[in-house]
């Protein structure tokens, strides 16, 4: 069944017609062309499609769009521009935390949620928070460094 929902995505409100079977990921990609939201496992196990839903990190592949009416979504497209990267993006760049880069937007959004909850996270908190995001290039040490650097840059430490 088709139904209408309202989503505020990266600060902009959208009225969307969705099918009951559509995932949030499908709507973000197919209707809104937010290509940073990437499918990988399709079962909410890898974090590649992590977006913030009302501020909380979720796997967009594992949520039905029809149930997200009136909610707020943030993706990496809403963070920073080339001239003014978000401090987390800047930290990922400076610490070589992106290799193939496919998982990077998901990690950045998960890190944003982490740093909003814990301004000065311990290494264990970083590991715990990011353990749902997978990077097959194995860039975890640099991702750790990037998150620590972002925390310092954002004034948490």
């Amino acid at each position, binding site marked *: 069944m088709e139904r209408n929902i309202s989503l505020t995505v990266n600060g902009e409100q959208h009225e969307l017609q969705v099918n009951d079977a559509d995932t949030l990921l499908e709507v973000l990609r197919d209707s809104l062309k937010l290509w940073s939201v990437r499918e990988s496992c399709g*079962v909410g196990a890898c974090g590649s499609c992590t977006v913030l839903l009302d501020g909380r990190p979720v796997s967009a592949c594992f949520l039905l769009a029809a149930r997200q009416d009136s909610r707020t979504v943030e993706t990496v497209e809403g963070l920073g521009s080339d001239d003014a990267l978000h401090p987390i993006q800047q930290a990922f760049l400076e610490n070589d935390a992106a290799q*193939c880069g496919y998982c990077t937007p998901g990690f950045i959004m998960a890190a944003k949620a982490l740093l909003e909850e814990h301004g000065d996270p311990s290494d264990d908190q970083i590991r715990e928070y990011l353990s749902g*995001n997978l990077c097959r290039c194995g860039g975890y040490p640099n991702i750790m460094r990037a998150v620590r650097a972002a925390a310092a840059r954002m004034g948490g430490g």
Partner: protein
Amino acid sequence: MADYSIVGKPVDRRDAVQKVTGRALHVGNMEPPGLLHVAVLRSPHPHARIVRIDKSRAEAQPGVAAVLTGADIAAMPGITPYHGPAFADQPVLAIDRVRHEGEQVVAVAAESRRAAEEALESVEVAYETLPVVLDVLDAIRPDAPIVHDEIRPSGAFADLAHVKAGDRSNICYHYKLRKGDVDKAFAEADRIFEDVFTAPPAQHVPMEPHVSLAYVDESGRINIHTASQSPSFVRGELARMLGVPMNRIRVRVPYLGGGYGAKLYNKLEPIVAILAMKTGRPVKYSLSREEEFQTVTKHGVVVKLKTAVRGSAMTARKCEVYWDTGAFAEIGPRIVHKSGYTSSGPYKIPNVSIDSYCVYTNKPPAGPFRGFGVPQVIWAYDSQMDIVARGLGVDPVEFRLEHALEEGDLFVTGTPIHACGLKEAVQRAADAVEWDKPKEPASGTKRRGKGIACGVKAVLTPSISGAIVILNADGSANVLSSTVEMGQGSESLLAQIAAEELGISFDKVHVVQPDTDVTPYDTISAGSRSTYHMGNAVRTAAANVKAELFEAVAGKLEIDAADLEACDGRVFVRGAEERGMTVTEAFLARFGSLGTTMVGEGLCQPVVTPMDPETGMSEKCTEYWFASASAVEVEVDLETGRLEVLQFHAAGDAGTAINPKYCEQQLVGAATMHLGLTLFEQMVFQDGQLLNGSLLDYQIASIKDVPAACNPIVVQVPHKDGPFGAKGIGETGALTVAAAVANALEDAVGVRVRDIPLTAERIYEALKAAGKVNGSE
């Protein structure tokens, strides 16, 4: 090291901003107007005859543009329905028979992915099941069900021309090496060590699943955008299959979301090409993660090793390696050959026999996997090195250093070892883990231990890389290369090489992404070969451009071109910088105009001396060797069998590190990936059905699995023919992880496990069998 301006410097990646903003282009983002989406019906059986397919109801469904079967493809005039890099044994869609669970049977192209999936539900396929063979050792028995009755030659690669399939056997390739007198050495041995090691099929898990898109353009040419590590191969193979000239096919590859060997040769490209031809519309096929598991795997192996020792020296080794290549050979025969000949290790052993077999079973096809089979043989031989050292009461590090081949020594194949920092890698890894420091006293139920392992890989030879460098009149340059950027940093590294050779700054170089219309042939982006091969091709192409540039300047200044050098976009007399001109001025001198380019071409094509088919001997079986050593400290819980890696040191020889940061990332990344494969990754089958085909059930290493101390050690022994002395390092960190961890496990708790993954359950069973559970030792 010589004083270079940009080579050897840790410059940032060119693609970093695109990647942190999420806008980097992947095939999945491409949506040409009128795009059709593909869904494929797959076999529920591991082995069955296709009795009948009824697709009429699917064809009548709304939104369906085409429904295709293997028989349909076989009936298309001029089309060859089979493909494969070693044998043409794989049908694009199953013909008459299915040979593994998940084999592709019927493809639908429809207006949406959902419409395509719904149409598949109305396709009816009647199967008659056939006897199944799953275990690699069962498959070589004379009474085993035969997976392929007939095997068609491929002809895709010249170095595989000698590969011929056996008759009525599941062994599709056998590599043989005979050196010295093995029987005599065993008869005279003081001690004989005999072990069997296994490794299971596993998954590559690139975060970006396979995806390909095809359309026929206005001139009737077939355009492919694909997540592939081998665009040149895809073009050649498609031209052959479709019966069209190579220049009627254009293959382009944007950034890859990881490859690790999964995205080589043809995967989805034939299906999208044929559907695009059939429908006249753009067609995209994206695999789900579940489908990934059915597409390509890492070879499971059984490795039997028998080693003779006399005094403190190893006098003979017999290796039998059985590679489970699944239902289609893929590149299995090459893996069985190239890894097979290294399976006795980089050690001084006078008498060796090796038999390495490529065996069909009814599992999903196995293909190349970061390390190309070498991690599997090192897992075996460097586990056994520890067993032998411990058996002789010799320190494992000393034992390796004593037996390791050195510069100029002959490898078992008779090929001399050159520029291979094996001993340095072992020593530096051992130092990093503080090998000689006494163990901390045991407390509670946890025990600590250290382990080391080493090994070498020989780079794939022969292979070919071509490159073109274009110097523009404003002093900027374009590099045309078919090397695929998949996270390894090749784009930036090739820019560093071109900038260094041309004497222009790094940011003046643009590397064109693979596009078979403009970028020359390259064998594959895999096997740790791009830095050396494409690096050399780019350097030569740049040097050829520089020669033309110098000639222009020399003519204008009336001096000898040999006295010139280039730096920072200027060409000047060596030692007299004021006598020179900018690149732009040189163009004006040469052409009287700025509206042109200087173009240089480069080629790197190392060759081999073919191996003797009976003895496996060759004066030159490879262009270069790369050495790996891993040292780890682990903690094992006697109550649960749980093993935790506390520190990890990954050492590898890069030749010259063109970019030290990328080398370190490759070492750590490869080690992390193989830590997962060592500790928990395995595809579990029951009756030919995969039980854990999703990332909920098949786990890979997460940030929690990486030890806090994870230390890359970049050894640099320059290779005389490498670009600025460089070799490859993409796989090096992967090679020696499993054996190092198993060796540390024995050091910690005194049990030897010969099967990976080293799960808590497996370790617990071994502890129990040794009477060591609950601190009962």
